[in-house]
């Protein structure tokens, strides 16, 4: 009886741990889940038309564009850089500009193919 109780306890503990891990993994998706629901994906990314594939938010749209006009960085990359720079606001600004450049690159490389037209 004791053995059975022990195994049931372990089962419950294992399930709880896995559940916690799963919840932790699910968090970033929850954040993204705020986006409006769209059509179910019908192709793998590799099949997707490259011109269109880059229409997904680029760093310029998603990160740098959201930078506040002040020196305070609002994206994680800039925040990391600012942290590493130990208070030099130029680090954050240059990091934001780097992200902006990446976004421009993304926009430029997003128009290389025709998507079949």
């Amino acid at each position, binding site marked *: 009886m004791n*053995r059975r109780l*022990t*195994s*049931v306890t*372990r*089962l419950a503990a*294992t*399930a709880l*741990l*896995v*559940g916690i*891990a*799963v919840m932790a*993994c*699910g968090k970033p*998706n*929850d954040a*993204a*889940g705020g*986006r*409006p*629901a769209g*059509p*179910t*994906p*019908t*192709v793998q*990314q590799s*099949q*997707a*038309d*490259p*011109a*269109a*594939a*880059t*229409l*997904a*938010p680029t760093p310029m*749209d998603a990160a740098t*564009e*959201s930078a506040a006009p002040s*020196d305070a960085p609002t994206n994680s990359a800039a925040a990391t850089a600012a942290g590493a720079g130990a208070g030099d606001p*130029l680090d954050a*600004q*240059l990091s934001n*500009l780097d992200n*902006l*450049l990446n*976004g*421009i*690159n993304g*926009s*430029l490389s*997003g*128009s290389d*193919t025709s*998507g*079949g*037209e």
Partner: protein
Amino acid sequence: MKTRIPALLAGLALGGALLLSTVGAAAAVTPPVGPAGQGVCATQAAAMKTGATVETARAFGDCEINRRFTTLDAMSARVSASKVLTSSDAAALQSEIASTKTGLTSLKATIDFETSLLALKVDIAKIATDYRVYLLVAPQVNFVSAADGVVAAQTRFADVNTKLAARIAAAKAAGKNTTAAQTALDAMNAAVAKAVGLAQPLPAKLLPLTPAQYNSGTAGPILTSARTALGQARDQLKAAMASAKACRAALK
């Protein structure tokens, strides 16, 4: 020990089920933003090739229109989310996306009611030629976004300039040689000015382009030169970044 293994397996199974249900739920609420690619309609294209009937042609046409809807929706979302696009450029792009969707919706209705295979083939050709979603609209969104991004960078470089100029002044006041730092700062400002000069005129050239202009061959060269100018502008901004870093390094 005998009781441990089943308990462990049961725990893992339960955990796995939890994991799968969570992943499934996440996938259900977070569809990829990436639009449908060319391969999406491969099945319909093959069916039409092997046996061209009204049904297979209609299925292919509908599929091609639907994947353009997906692309247009993704572009619209990107324009809405953009913080570098000027409000007028964003409005112009949204207007173009909306009118393209309206036109394709109308064409889809025509295709859905068409009973002649020959007429269907003509309608299907119009999906590309009358709207140019991938050859014109997508580059317009991308290039105008890039051009406005370059212009937006100007404001940020102006802030960098202010800070570096203040540091140069402080260093000079402290009796340090600031020649190298000033040279680098001047180079930064010159590169930014060049980049902006290249990018700023582009939206006005790109936004009025129409599918008819693309078909007649007049839009293509404008798109090509815009891409070239934006590549040069990007390189200028990269050089400006390098100069900003050089200036800061010279002051240390």
